């Protein structure tokens, strides 16, 4: 299908809205009625046509508006995009990965024409038609990672692999769930995960790292993560927490359905060919509670998950104060009947 791109905002007047199509394909993250951290990784294989798992890099109706929001955030704070000097080659690997995938999977939106190292890239939704020399930085308006991630939804962390660890040595981070690239850049896998409760003690990070170190080229993996956001705000950064923190106040039974959003991250992992780096795209999907409960199974299940979530997790995810209200509102959509296994709606 051809995608109708929305004209919408993720700040200020918050005109973001999901169409019925976007609601039906939302990546609901709970396959059962409870949630705890786990090493929840699976191959990033094409799955369920039309779903967010079909394409290598999902493009949806929010694409153009999300890219405008990224440009706005970067103009305000250029430190959201950083790359240590040894990461330039990995940036080119990423240019190749994204351009090839998008041109092959969305031929009506993107085109890539190669003449040796002379590449022509056409991005129709954003009105871009650039010709450049692959691996020659001087032929692009930005560094390679910044160039391509200004045109791709989701945050990106690019990890250097050395000493049996991963090092966050580059990134584009404007849609994050409250962590700072500027603070975390240069850290290793255990260091940047340090603030997460319970998962270290459960051995999750040791096992997850082992899995990631062994990811091979052409065999990407994925997982889902989630949190809660009041208003459809993509930029929930610690840098701007003093500006958005107050939005968590003032939720009522009347407005919570519209204001409260479930925020789901589709995280994927790709080995890059020249640099041997790992790239970690973190794609954020938002859905307001009142849209989510139009799928009866999701409403029932979300109520049970939020009600029973361990306190440490609700605190870490930043919604402990609003949890009672969420549970009260969601309970209206839980008739107590059983839910089927898996994340998909019952048709």
């Amino acid at each position: 299908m051809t995608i109708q791109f929305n004209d919408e905002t993720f700040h200020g007047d918050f005109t973001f809205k999901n169409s019925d199509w976007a609601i039906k394909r939302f990546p609901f993250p709970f396959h059962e009625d409870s949630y705890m951290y786990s090493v929840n990784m699976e191959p990033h294989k094409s799955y369920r046509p039309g779903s967010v798992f079909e394409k290598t890099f999902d493009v949806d109706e929010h694409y153009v508006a999300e890219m405008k929001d990224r440009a706005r955030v970067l103009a305000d704070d250029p430190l959201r995009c950083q790359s240590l000097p040894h990461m330039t080659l990995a940036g080119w690997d990423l240019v190749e990965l994204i351009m090839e995938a998008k041109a092959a999977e969305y031929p009506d939106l993107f085109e890539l024409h190669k003449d040796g190292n002379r590449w022509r890239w056409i991005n129709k939704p954003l009105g871009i038609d650039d010709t450049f020399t692959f691996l020659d930085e001087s032929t692009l308006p930005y560094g390679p990672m910044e160039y391509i991630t200004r045109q791709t939804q989701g945050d990106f962390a690019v990890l250097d692999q050395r000493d049996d660890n991963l090092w966050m040595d580059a990134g584009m981070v404007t849609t994050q769930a409250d962590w700072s690239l500027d603070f975390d850049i240069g850290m290793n896998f255990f260091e940047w995960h340090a603030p997460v409760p319970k998962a270290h003690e459960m051995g999750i990070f040791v096992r997850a790292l082992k899995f990631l170190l062994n990811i091979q080229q052409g065999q990407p993996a994925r997982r889902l993560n989630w949190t809660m956001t009041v208003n459809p705000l993509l930029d929930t950064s610690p840098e701007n927490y003093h500006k958005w923190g107050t939005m968590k106040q003032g939720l009522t039974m009347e407005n919570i359905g519209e204001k409260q959003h479930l925020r789901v991250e589709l995280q994927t992992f790709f080995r890059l060919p020249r640099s041997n780096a790992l790239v970690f795209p973190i794609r954020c999907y938002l859905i307001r509670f009142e849209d989510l409960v139009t799928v009866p199974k999701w409403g029932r299940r979300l109520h049970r998950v939020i009600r029973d979530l361990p306190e440490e997790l609700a605190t870490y995810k930043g919604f402990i104060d609003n949890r009672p209200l969420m549970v009260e509102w969601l309970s209206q959509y839980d008739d107590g009947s059983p839910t089927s296994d898996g994340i998909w709606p019952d048709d």
Partner: protein
Amino acid sequence: MSKTVFPPSIKSRPVYGELEARAGSGHLMIADAEGAEAILDLAKSADAAFWAKAHIIYIPKGTGTKYSSQLEELGAGQYYAGPSYEAAQSRIRRALLDCHMGTQVYLTGTESLMGQAMAEATAAGIPHTAIQTEHRGSTARRMQCVHCKGITEDVTTDPFECSHCGLSLFVRDHYSRRLAAFQGVRVDAEDPGNIPEKVELFK
């Protein structure tokens, strides 16, 4: 004064050891305040040949002359005492550049000094295995404000005021080696004006 015992913390927070005199082609020692005591302790097991190859860079901070004459008398090939880390920084960079293969680096005193000198040493390509650390003295923290990015030195309370933008920040344990700083985040972000009373957590 005894060595500092820190409570268990999260994995980004550095851990420190105990200095020992090691064989090396040179010895670069960077210390502030009570860090002098760690060097004086180490001196008990180091001979004149060791000191001949040593360069001590010392920032007394509040300790005045309490330790400086004792350090000077150790007979280091080079001895320098400076008024602040900033003042000593170009000398520290130069000394790190001059390090040969096999030079041992010793960092001791406050976390702020060790963190900053560690970042310089790593940037200069000194291998981790050639760098030792030992905490002595104040546990005050060097904090980065996540909002304005300004650094506030010698923070002893939680919350504290950012010395640059003035916001009241709470003190996290999350630590960046690159910045040599802990992270400070606005304490009243969700409820402006609701600032809890300061507690002295670090001395």
